[in-house]
């Protein structure tokens, strides 16, 4: 069930130009965020397109500065609905990140991180992605994921501890 974000204001409207700027600035981020979790390109494209459709329909109510949060909120909930429908809590569709991703440090570390992230649940994965990829604050993540700021902080710290422990364990195993 998609909950409309609270930052919709009726007095502001988005022009065609502003909308196209939003497409330029945010479409890749939303697509990357969804693709990282769903690991399905077609699903990610559909979700991104639906999110921008919703933004276009509600362009008179959404403030331009809040468009990014609106897009991520809509995309996140669409993705959750999609995962619930398909019961894809454990992603099986492979996604070759090497084709598009920029290596961070060494490929071995990257591989270890991917394995560690894949073991996280969708909420923790979303928290990590929104924080690390998009740089959202706890408050913004809470608005997107319908969580309180303290919840975001706790869940995110748990996810980071899991990643740290997993990474430490894998490094010891590889050493």
């Amino acid at each position: 069930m998609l909950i409309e974000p609270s930052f919709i204001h009726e007095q502001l409207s988005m022009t065609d130009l502003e909308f196209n700027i939003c497409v330029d600035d945010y479409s890749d981020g939303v697509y990357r965020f969804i693709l990282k979790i769903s690991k399905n390109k077609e699903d990610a494209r559909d979700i991104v397109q639906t999110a921008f459709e919703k933004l276009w329909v509600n362009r008179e109510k959404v403030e331009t500065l809040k468009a990014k949060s609106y897009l991520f909120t809509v995309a996140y909930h669409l993705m959750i609905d999609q995962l619930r429908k398909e019961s894809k809590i454990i992603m099986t569709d492979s996604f070759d990140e090497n084709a598009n991703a920029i290596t961070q440090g060494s490929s071995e570390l990257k591989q270890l991180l991917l394995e560690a992230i894949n073991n996280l649940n969708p909420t923790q994965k979303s928290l990590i992605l929104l924080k690390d990829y998009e740089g959202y604050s706890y408050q913004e993540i809470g608005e997107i994921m319908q969580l309180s700021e303290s919840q975001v902080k706790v869940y995110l710290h748990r996810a980071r501890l899991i990643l740290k422990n997993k990474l430490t364990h894998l490094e010891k195993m590889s050493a």
Partner: protein
Amino acid sequence: MINENNYETYFMSYIDNELIATERAAVEAFVLNEAKYAAAMAVFEKAKLHAPNVEMEDKIFLYRFPEMQASLDSDFKKSLYRKEAPVCKIIFTPNLMRASFAIAAILIFFVGIQLFKTETIIKDKTALAITNNASTNSKQTENTILPDNAPEASVNKNNNSSAVLNSLPFNKKLNTTKVKSVISAHAAFEDQTIASNNMNTNIVASTEGLSQDSRKNESQIRSNLMETMPIEEEKTISVIPTTYKEIDTEEEDRTINIGIIEIDGAAFRGITRKFSALLKRNKIEKEK
């Protein structure tokens, strides 16, 4: 204040950029004092993800252009619709079908009667039609019967289907049973007609119209009759009185249709019963 118990929380908040400037400075000082905390901070730093460069392939479809908002006028749309003629639906109800079949059956019955109705009127009361089931053709029989004492006998070959016979004094040698039957029929039903099953043998004779030529051919005709009608094959002739209508024999394309219609009441009821049962069954299935 950061210490050994809460340093992980501070480290994660530091990585997430959720600390204020004083707290960040405190964390950096805490890491510099102890090497093991610096190693822990490095692990947290490694666990932090870096955004890959991922581009959406079909981004062009997300853009909005003013042309995309153009819409057609409703009147113009309506003008494009194809105007269809009103469709008349015929509803076949069981009662309508029964009535239709009944009307069709009655029409077929009356048309059949009209088609197969044969009626002949005797123009003259002396006309007779004699039939037999022999294989003699009309020409042969026409030449076989000639009166003995008739002054003139006119045999009109063109009008060989109609006959007027006033007297029939035939030769006993030639006309045995057949002639007798004809005479008796003539006497009994002088004003009536005689129907025949085979129309090939219509005999025409007239005592008043007999010509001298026909008398000359008398012997020849008698011999022909002997050949065509042997005594052994003669049969009793059933003479049925009927009425005849004068037929124009000069018409070349004339055709005569003979037919009989027999309707078995029981079989007809059976057919109608089966048909009604079929209709009723279909109706029940539709209702189900």
